[in-house]
């Protein structure tokens, strides 16, 4: 992972990015910069562009215009380094139904070329309370358990940037608390977290920065404490308004 680049300079930048699906603009002229240690909450109603933005940052999609940079260079040019530094989890679990929990984690760990694979797999199984289900096929797990495996997969290579799209979906209370603790912990360890959620209060408790999206445009990008919540239409019961 670009050994000559100081960690603090390994920024993930979105510069003037627009993304169109046919005539529909999912994102328009989006600017965003994420540095190690950041905890960023992506907030917006359905269709605001949160998922598209996260997919672009994970290099799963290409912008129609603008660019996504990693360490100052186009993410497609630094694909290997960027992918090693990014962990991504979304609505789709990205897991094989016919493989067990452990087999899935081992498979993706091998693709990342992890040297201490078994140690890392064991660590993630313990972290997400999956040890007793490690031999169970993914298709036999509940949605919440699949989400836990998906999060374990995203964290397996200990990424510098963790991108999570609605990570709390399907999680029970205990798993939610564990994930909240994890999301608080990672910025303290000098790693960045960018996540989206419909639950503003939950997200605000975990993030330092708010990026509010509306119809594909960034309406606010700055410290959460300074965010003009009323002007953004965010109130304690915003969840109900936006969900």
């Amino acid at each position, binding site marked *: 992972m670009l050994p000559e680049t100081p960690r603090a300079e390994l920024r993930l930048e979105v510069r003037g990015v627009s993304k169109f699906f046919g005539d529909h603009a999912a994102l328009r002229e989006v600017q965003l910069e994420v540095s190690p240690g950041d905890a960023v909450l992506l907030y917006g109603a359905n269709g605001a562009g949160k998922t598209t933005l996260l997919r672009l940052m*994970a*290099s*799963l*999609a*290409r912008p129609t215009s603008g660019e996504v940079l990693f360490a100052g260079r186009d993410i497609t040019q630094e*694909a*290997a*380094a960027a*992918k*090693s530094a*990014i962990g*991504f989890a*979304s609505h*789709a*679990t*990205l*897991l*094989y*139904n*016919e*493989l067990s929990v452990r*087999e899935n984690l081992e*498979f*993706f760990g*091998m*693709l*990342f*070329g992890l040297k201490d694979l078994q140690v890392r797999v064991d660590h993630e199984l313990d972290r997400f309370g999956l040890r007793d289900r490690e031999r169970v*096929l993914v298709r036999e797990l509940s949605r919440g358990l699949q989400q836990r495996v998906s999060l374990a*997969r995203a964290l397996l290579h200990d990424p510098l940037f963790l991108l999570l799209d609605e990570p709390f979906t399907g999680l029970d209370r205990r798993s939610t608390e564990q994930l909240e603790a994890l999301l608080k912990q990672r910025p303290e360890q000098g790693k960045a977290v960018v996540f989206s959620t419909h639950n503003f209060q939950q997200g605000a408790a975990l993030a330092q920065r708010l990026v509010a999206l509306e119809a594909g445009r960034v309406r606010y990008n700055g410290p959460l404490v300074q965010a003009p919540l009323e002007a953004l239409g965010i109130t304690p019961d915003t969840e109900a308004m936006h969900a």
Partner: protein
Amino acid sequence: MRSLEVLWIIFRKDLRVEWRNRETLVSMCVFGVLIVFLFNFGLQLAPTEMLLSLPVVLWAGFAFAGVLGFNRAFASERENSCLEGMTLAPIDPSAIFAGKLLANLFFLAVAEVVMVFIAALWYNFSFLPSLGQFVLIAFWGTLGYAALGTIFGAIAANTRMREVMLTVLQFPVAFWILMLAMDATAQAFRGNPNGDATAGVLRVAGVSIVFTVASLLLFEYVLEE
């Protein structure tokens, strides 16, 4: 070196998935054997005419069984967007293609062995005199056909009518491999009446290499949305 390792990891994963659900290989073999039987009953050929029809019967069986397998190969990748999961890893897209191709090649090769065995029994035809030549033709023909099946399978996986789309996309291109392979196989079964045993094999190998390399190079663009 890393790409070879990735190729092997993906191949082993596909074998494991197939071992668990046993959907692809069984359906390919059954379908292929049914085609061999159907042609036999439909054509009612005299033994002397068999040499003309057997290459067509076999390659039609290989082609249709292959389509079945290629569709299934990306069904497991489509579920839960697993293909995206693979593209998140710092690996060369061509290694993903090669891994999927190797799995497709393996499943189709197994189905072909079963079809050839059944055809040998049913048509009372000995493949032994032309076995070496036929194996080479089958290898190159299958490689090119599986390469096309892998890339078009990946393209079709993202479309709405994916089962239909694969056939519609693949057959116009695969036509060239199948035609050359049928012709070369017919020559081999007849004992190479024109005296040149290598020309047919080389033609199939040439086209197959072109299609395989082109598919390998284009796969990266297929992965992008």
